[in-house]
């Protein structure tokens, strides 16, 4: 008998393990199933981004880019892919391409500072206009929640900018942290815009086509 080794298969395996030791009702089962899916999705997505980064020698850059991206994304939302595999492939490609920039496109402090200021202003504009950017699978329905998420998005961007400016004053050269985190913030800010949604939609359709799946 052929078993489909899908994410659901592994989620059920973990839940069966839990159920072997304690009683789990229907509601807890649904909550745990969702949480385990989030964990597995994260492992898949980060592995697919970081393993190529390790091979290419960009691990630090890609790690900082993805973590900065995630820190802002939690509050600002942004464009999505239609499946975890498309999300992982898309994320791996973009983060690794961006990861090459600090390595091969060396910038001096003044240019880096200009990019930081541009990224800060662009992020403020994108967040002010579009954030929080929700999806059909997780709509943000209350005004209060919208305001809290938008405010927290601004806080994340301001904290990042503050750290970057402190670096600019103290450091003598462009560091990986500042360069990579700037790219992470810029990428995430772009994904909340209309153009970011369009780009993700095109990338998603292209991935579905190459994977021979129905669009």
């Amino acid at each position: 008998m052929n078993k489909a080794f899908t994410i659901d298969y592994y989620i059920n395996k973990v839940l069966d393990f839990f159920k072997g030791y304690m009683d789990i009702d229907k509601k807890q089962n649904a909550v745990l199933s969702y949480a385990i899916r989030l964990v597995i999705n994260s492992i898949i997505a980060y592995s697919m981004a970081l393993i190529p980064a390790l091979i290419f020698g960009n691990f630090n850059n890609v790690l900082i880019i993805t973590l900065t991206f995630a820190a802002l994304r939690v509050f600002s939302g942004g464009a999505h892919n239609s499946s975890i595999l498309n999300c992982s492939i898309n994320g791996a490609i973009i983060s690794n391409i961006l990861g090459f920039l600090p390595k091969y496109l060396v910038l001096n402090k003044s240019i880096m500072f200009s990019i930081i200021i541009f990224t800060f202003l662009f992020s403020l504009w994108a967040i002010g206009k579009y954030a929080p950017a929700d999806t059909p699978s997780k709509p943000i329905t209350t005004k209060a929640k919208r305001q809290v998420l938008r405010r927290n998005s601004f806080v994340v961007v301001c904290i990042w900018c503050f750290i970057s400016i402190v670096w600019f004053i103290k450091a003598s050269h462009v560091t990986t942290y500042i360069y990579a985190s700037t790219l992470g913030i810029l990428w995430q800010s772009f994904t909340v815009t209309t153009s970011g949604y369009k780009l993700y939609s095109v990338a998603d359709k292209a991935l579905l086509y190459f994977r021979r799946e129905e669009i």
Partner: protein
Amino acid sequence: MKKRLLQAAITLLTFLALSNIASATSVMGYQPEIPQELLD
């Protein structure tokens, strides 16, 4: 001991699920479907 560890794991996973509901989206470019039990 094992049961306590599993209870801790369940607590952590429940916290993760609720944190995700409170946030705008998941940290990657894919948002799985939220079960009705979490929305209630």
